């Protein structure tokens, strides 16, 4: 479960980077900017939510390493 979630967190961070980069253009299209702006704000909210709630899953292996095999 966390693998999928975390992947999309990374994907969301990457998407946000892209949105920011889009706004870095010298003469971006103003009409398109409205849509991009909304997308950016939604991403920020989603990322914040994820960061607040995600926890690590720690599993101690049953395998023993004090003997060969």
């Amino acid at each position, binding site marked *: 479960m966390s693998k999928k979630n975390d992947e999309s967190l990374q994907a969301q961070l990457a998407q946000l980077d892209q949105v920011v980069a889009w706004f870095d253009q010298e003469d971006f299209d103003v009409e398109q900017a409205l849509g991009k702006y909304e997308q950016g*704000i939604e991403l920020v909210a989603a*990322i914040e939510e994820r960061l607040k709630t995600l926890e690590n*899953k*720690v599993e*101690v292996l049953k395998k023993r390493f004090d003997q060969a095999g």
Partner: protein
Amino acid sequence: MEKTPISVSETVALINQTLEYALPVLMVEGEVASFKVNQGKYVFFDLKDEESSLGCFMTVWQLRMPLEDGMKVRVVATPKLTAWGKFSLTVREVRPVGEGSLKRSFELLKAKLEKEGLFDEDRKRPLPRLPHSVGLIASTESAGYVDFLTILGSRWGGMEVSVAHVQVQGVGAAEQLVRAVEYFNTLDERPEVLVVVRGGGSADDLAVFNDEPLVRAIAASKIPTLVGIGHEVDVSLVDLVADVRAATPSNAAEILVPDKREIMTNVQVAAKDIGVRFDRRLERLHDELMQIKPELDRSLKQRLIRLHDSVMQKRRLLETLNPVRVLKSGYALLRTADGKPVSTKGQSAIKKGDELKLELNKRILGVGVTYVEEK
């Protein structure tokens, strides 16, 4: 009472059985002397102190750290009488003890592995930026393990951490660490990063991290490695061979993942940036329009003025051509009897006796042509 005699071989076997029963494992400390390796496989040396000396035997594969004469070592061994009646210790594990010997052994192995290029910078791989899966090798009873997981959890979430619980000091610890490294590397779904942590300890405690097979196992790991061993002194060979070295287990967690609070701040800054840029773009667009407007106004005005000028010019021209004005200055307009103006071409049709109309300034006169002559 007389005993039944037994054979020599039986005697050796009996003594060995007795030894095994009485002294199954010995841990002996002493100084190495007459160290030699035969056929690249068998290691022989004497273990001695001021008064006594014992022969020791082991294979090179069991020798995990370099030895040389004069080194103080601790061996874990089984006493044995050989078939030819020589008493020796069959060594299972040997490691240098005391600062001087540890240091010497460390230097010897370091030089050897360095020559092989195991510590070269270009062997170092970067760690994944945001790993999903982590293979953690540690003792779950250690403070280092708890520190690592605590810091990891406070900084980042959503990871799967598989923990290989191993002993990180004492007899067999190095071998356990090697097995754990190899275990993670043989998995079908390997973790993205391998982390080895161990809290601080004395030089003796940490000697396990100068173990040659362990150093080689980490060097051979297909998974990038991060090592966080708390040291009071110097670095270990495992530190040198790992892709990334952290100073402590907590530091390893800090290196492995970004702080989510930092990411949160970055994300908020990004959101603000987007807004600022959007506003700026709109402002610039407005400025551009405002800049163009006077130009547009000016060019429109100029065009109107030009149009007006040209109309006035034409009007003046027309005025000079107005026939009424011409008549006013004394000229007359000649028309045929039916009132058509006589053109240059029409003049040639006029003949004697024709009736014409002559328009003056104020009057129109009917006139007869009395003669016609060419000019």
